[in-house]
């Protein structure tokens, strides 16, 4: 997984480069649609690339042309068009709504014909052109901010948070499975004759933490290189991609803390589970929380200021992935970040202390998984 991600990205860039050399761009096919003008005067601008409009004197003729496959569809500019704006469209296709290309071609055709001769030609073009809006973000001093936002800013955090969520799941499963297998094969007591429970637990947590750190380091180091390569291959959007400020440092910090929390949780769950299979099932309960921010990522883009994101950024199990995602969408207030980090660290310490106790009590118990109440009773009396 560590090397697979950069290698896959490299492969994707290579394939696109290869394909772009081999395949020439296909010609865009022209679509012919018919129209019936019940008002009169809609005669010009019948070429709305790639759509060509053909006029029919009556609706019957238009229908005959449609059935004969001369036109793919037709529309009728109703007699009441100037007062109601009504245009009736006829097609043989079953559709949810008119294709956007057709809609805008009809709109341009109608607007051009209405305005022609009344306003200058460039005014018609201006009316028809989509809104050309550019945004510049300023700092509090009025200078142009270095970090400008937009989708260019989101792409890296989005990919990173997806990978983070996957790896947290992967490693939580790995940890629980490892412990489960050591319990199943009765290795635990052999190990405990050489290392203390604390050493065994800390060793496992740190081992996975370091593995995670190597993974994130490889990804983050390969990112700028891959971006450079991608922008020289694809140009356009990729050349505008930005990595948000602090992202790399925060990425590493949250990655490590996320790992430690999940490893500590998995140690506890691994200790109470009688075998690897049950352990992995139990670990799904908290592993799922790493995925939760991704479920709601589209809502985050629409309502970036909702309090829900604050809660998800502070709640320790969702925090790592949520914060990574939010860094790409909007600014995170300093206090939120501070609370998020402090709570994450405290929860790691708490869970680790609890897991150590559970470890001592349950590591050498084989057979049935204990009920939650029994676990709590036993760690209190330990």
């Amino acid at each position, binding site marked *: 997984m560590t090397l697979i991600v950069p290698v896959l990205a490299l492969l994707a860039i290579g394939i696109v480069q290869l394909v772009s050399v081999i395949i020439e761009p296909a010609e865009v096919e022209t679509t012919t649609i018919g129209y019936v003008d019940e008002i009169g005067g809609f005669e010009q601008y019948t070429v709305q690339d790639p759509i060509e409009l053909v006029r029919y004197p009556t609706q019957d003729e238009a229908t005959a042309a449609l059935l004969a496959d001369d036109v793919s569809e037709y529309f009728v500019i109703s007699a009441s068009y100037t007062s109601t704006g009504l245009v009736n469209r006829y097609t043989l296709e079953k559709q949810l709504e008119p294709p956007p290309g057709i809609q805008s071609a009809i709109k341009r055709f109608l607007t051009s014909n209405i305005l022609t001769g009344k306003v200058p030609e460039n005014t018609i073009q201006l009316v028809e052109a989509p809104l050309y809006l550019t945004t510049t973000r300023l700092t509090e001093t009025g200078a142009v901010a270095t970090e400008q936002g937009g989708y260019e800013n989101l792409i890296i955090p989005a990919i990173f948070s997806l990978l983070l969520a996957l790896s947290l799941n992967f490693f939580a499963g790995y940890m629980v499975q490892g412990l489960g297998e050591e319990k199943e*094969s009765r290795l635990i*007591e052999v190990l*405990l*004759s*050489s290392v203390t429970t604390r050493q065994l637990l800390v060793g496992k947590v740190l081992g996975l933490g370091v593995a995670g750190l190597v993974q994130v380091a490889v990804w983050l180091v390969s990112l700028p290189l891959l971006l450079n390569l991608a922008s020289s291959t694809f140009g356009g959007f990729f050349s505008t991609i930005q990595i948000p400020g602090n992202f790399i440092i925060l990425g590493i910090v949250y990655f490590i803390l996320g790992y430690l929390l999940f490893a500590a949780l998995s140690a506890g769950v691994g200790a109470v589970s009688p075998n690897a299979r049950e352990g992995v099932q139990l670990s799904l309960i908290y592993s799922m929380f790493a995925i939760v921010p991704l479920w709601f990522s589209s809502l985050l883009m629409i309502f970036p200021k909702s309090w829900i994101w604050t809660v998800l950024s502070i709640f320790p199990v969702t925090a790592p992935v949520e914060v990574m995602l939010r860094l790409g969408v909007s600014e995170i207030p300093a206090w939120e970040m501070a609370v998020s980090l402090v709570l994450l660290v405290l929860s790691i310490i708490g869970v680790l202390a609890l897991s150590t106790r559970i470890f*001592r009590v349950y590591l*050498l118990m084989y057979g049935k998984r204990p009920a939650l109440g029994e676990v709590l009773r*036993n760690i209190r009396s330990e």
Partner: protein
Amino acid sequence: MQAVEVSHVVKSFADKVAVDDLSFAVNQGELFGLIGPNGAGKTTTIRMMMDIIKPDSGEVTVFGEKFGETTLNKLGYLPEERGLYKKLKVLDSITYLASLKGMDRRPAEEKAGELLERTGMSYTRNMKIEEMSKGMGQIIQFIVTIVHDPQLVILDEPFSGLDPVNTELLKEICIDLKNQGKAVILSAHQMNQVEELCDRILMVNNGRAVLYGDLSEIKSNYKGNSVLLDVEGEPGDLPGVAEKRAHKGYVELVLDGKTTPQQLLERLVSSGKVVNRFEMATPSLNEIFLKEVGKNKK
């Protein structure tokens, strides 16, 4: 200095007292037997000696010191619930677990080679654990226990799953370890093995010490007033014998309390009987065990 000293150790779990005020000591250079029925508290006691679980009260010292991280390296422990990494090769398993005991790879490999040689398992060094039979795995597990040259070896049910040949081999190694001045604690259900190997024993039942001390002294304390006799022909009526119990190949004669075995032997010899066997009946450890455990059950 004693290898282990356990004094007034108590350990309870949620619903029961597993070990109740248990005290004993194991000397260096002795084979010590820890016996008792299932659930008597043997494994809990061993786990407290290994610092795997903490006693509620009482103290355990190993080689005169309280348990520390370096203590573990002086101990070799073969737990009752044991296993190895199934996917790992035999030599890698041994050297990895030896490295956890602070051994470098090269000396660990050399020692592992020696022990594999001695146990006739050299051919398995590149085999995966999962490819081995249970008995072969047991031998490897035993090698893992002693590869780092521990000063105190604790063996919990070491003979379970072993064939007679390997059982004898393990016994030989245990005696060797003792002769090298190491302390060996043997926890087992098979009383005959303990009886054959151990100098001193501790019998526990319900978490408490039932018998503790020198095995021969314990056995002589349980010596009954009876003799085992094998004579040619029928022994006939013998004065001073209260009861006669027939066994295969011999009879057990329970004396009446006034007659000594010496007097009985003299009577037999003077009556002209050919005596093939005349032996003071000492109970086996198994009999003592059944007697003590049975007493507690009642």
